[in-house]
């Protein structure tokens, strides 16, 4: 039998996981990985450490270049992919045409743009960005970070730990608004402020102020002047759809894929930040954008499925082939990319594995304070169980008997068990509420985190020095 030719566009976590899983099932196939970056596979979330010089590029490389051969992967570094010709089963690259039998698109995401650019304005997405910032850093006495999402805050944290004060401009009223709820973000806000950060909430950039020496600061739409010699933009990411624009693939927010991570074109797969795949949301439905993912939910929400008969499971035509895009979403997360890449790779090599659906979840650690959030984090209309005290904050949100989301701060053990409960819609409400009430019967949210709570927290943190 002729060896299959697999072509993978993208050398990120999704692409590499795909490649390894193809190789597991198909020992002969030719696997080619194309990337427009000039580095072998590295850990994207760790580039903020490279940015401040804490780690060198080699230290966050996860698959050194000479190892690619060992698994029979051909790496085409620094090669831009231009157009997809799916009918002819080829793509055009800067180094000529590439034929394929199976194609895997894992082109990841690009940072959202702001209408300003020029010297001193950076985004953090690639190793190249990080190296650029590192080269610029000696000039910087104070930095500005625009965006309060995970990437912006991570960049700010890296700068703070490197001893550079940071002004953080956030368009919403709290930091990490997509990850944490308001209460838990207060903890982080306090820690950040104690370590040299200043926050500007509900603000946007109106103007960039430059002097002869370079960037001087920005003016917010409230008219405040924010000082800084460098601006890092972390306003979130959007899927990198450049190469699929006219290729005939179904695209919504990202490339739409079915449960096998296959696009509407046979033999063409997508995964990672670029794919819009199945997600599990157990948010109680009171909006009209309803979709049923779980058979059980149609029983429990009988009322809502009568209101929206088109989305109930009795109509397979609307949900099986290309389900409504509202239960598909882009989740730009590392573990999600890894799992999707795994599923895509195995299916490309001939297996039939279904993706059970992702849950938005994030694990963060700043100044020694750990937090994990998963599923929905805002309690609009759902019932919640809450525990707070001793530098620990735990909030569980329920939809009927099932867990719909959780925010854990301080004590994150068992986070995986909870995530598992969300992914499988397990009825865990009674267990969790009784565990919470046993821990601390008289907990209330009213009182703000007292100083003593933070001091016990910090005494724990100072232990890190011991290790």
């Amino acid at each position, binding site marked *: 039998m002729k060896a299959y030719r697999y072509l993978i566009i993208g050398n990120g976590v999704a692409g590499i996981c795909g490649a390894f899983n193809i190789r597991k099932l198909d020992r002969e196939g030719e696997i080619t990985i194309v990337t427009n970056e000039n580095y072998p596979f590295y850990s994207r979330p*760790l580039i903020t450490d490279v940015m401040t010089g804490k780690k060198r590029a080699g230290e966050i490389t996860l698959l050194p270049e000479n190892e690619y051969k060992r698994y029979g992967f051909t790496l085409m570094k620094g090669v831009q992919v231009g157009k997809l010709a799916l009918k002819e089963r080829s793509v055009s690259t800067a180094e000529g045409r590439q034929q394929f039998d199976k194609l895997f698109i894992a082109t990841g995401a690009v940072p959202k743009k702001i209408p300003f650019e020029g010297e001193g304005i950076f985004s953090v997405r690639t190793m190249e960005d990080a190296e650029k910032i590192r080269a610029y850093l000696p000039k910087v006495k104070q930095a500005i970070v625009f965006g309060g999402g995970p990437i912006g805050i991570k960049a700010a944290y890296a700068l703070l730990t490197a001893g550079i004060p940071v002004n953080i401009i956030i368009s919403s009223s709290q930091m990490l608004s997509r990850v944490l709820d308001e209460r838990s973000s207060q903890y982080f806000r306090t820690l950040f402020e104690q370590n040299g950060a200043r926050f500007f909430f509900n603000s946007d950039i109106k103007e960039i102020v430059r002097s002869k020496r370079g960037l001087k600061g920005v003016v917010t739409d409230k008219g405040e002047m924010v000082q800084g010699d460098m601006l890092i933009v972390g306003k979130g990411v959007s899927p990198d759809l450049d190469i699929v624009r006219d290729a005939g693939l179904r695209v919504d927010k990202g490339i739409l894929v079915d449960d096998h991570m296959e696009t509407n074109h046979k033999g063409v797969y997508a995964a990672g930040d670029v794919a819009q795949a199945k997600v599990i949301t157990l948010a109680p439905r009171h909006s009209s954008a309803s979709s049923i993912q779980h058979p059980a939910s149609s029983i429990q929400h009988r009322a809502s499925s009568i209101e929206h008969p088109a989305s109930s499971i009795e109509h397979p035509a609307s949900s099986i082939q290309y389900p409504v895009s509202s239960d598909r979403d882009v989740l730009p997360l590392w573990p999600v990319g890894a*799992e999707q890449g795994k599923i895509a790779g195995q299916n490309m090599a001939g297996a039939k594995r279904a993706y059970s659906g992702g849950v938005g979840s994030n694990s963060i*650690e700043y100044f020694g304070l750990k937090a994990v959030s998963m599923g929905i984090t805002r309690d609009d209309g759902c019932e919640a169980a809450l525990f707070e005290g001793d530098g620990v904050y735990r909030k569980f949100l329920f939809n009927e008997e099932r867990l719909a989301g959780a925010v854990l701060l301080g004590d*994150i053990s068992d986070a*995986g068990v909870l995530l598992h409960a969300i992914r499988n819609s397990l009825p865990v409400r009674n267990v969790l509420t009784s565990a919470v009430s046993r821990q601390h019967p008289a907990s209330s949210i009213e009182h703000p985190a007292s100083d003593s709570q933070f001091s016990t927290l910090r005494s724990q943190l100072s232990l*890190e020095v011991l290790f």
Partner: protein
Amino acid sequence: MREIFFIKDRCVGCGACKTACAAEHAKNHHLYDPLSSVPMGKKRRTDRYKQTPGDEVPHPVRCLHCDEPSCMEGCISGAIGKADRVYSRWDACVGCFMCVMNCPFGAVLPFLNKAVRCDQCLFTEKPACVRACPQNAIVYMESSEFAENEKKKRWRDRVQKEIPLLKAKA
């Protein structure tokens, strides 16, 4: 590969396994270290053996060394590897706790700024928890051997239940 098995109905919840685990992973294998290094009275998790509350008896949890470890998929630093057993390398771990978030069994524990898991007490003949358990509720054996024992046990239980019945009939 030998594994640690927990036999729940033998456990009385004394916590000797936990203590033994903490001591085993302390610098000089003495319980003094893990107890003294943190403000006393704080809940601590130096031990790699964990007990989940909520059950009527505390239930130790350990890594199952999955075929497709979701902890490994989530790891952003490549610290987790799989060779016979799933392991995490202490020096490579950056403490992002993706693994804690992803393991459906809660088998990875955050400890200060590193993730730790049961390493089955490498370089010892028997894991410390197995040695410590006064009830023989934790055993260390090949999974085939354990399954065999379980089968025998179930057969014995059944026979013990059935004999009085048979006698009554006779």
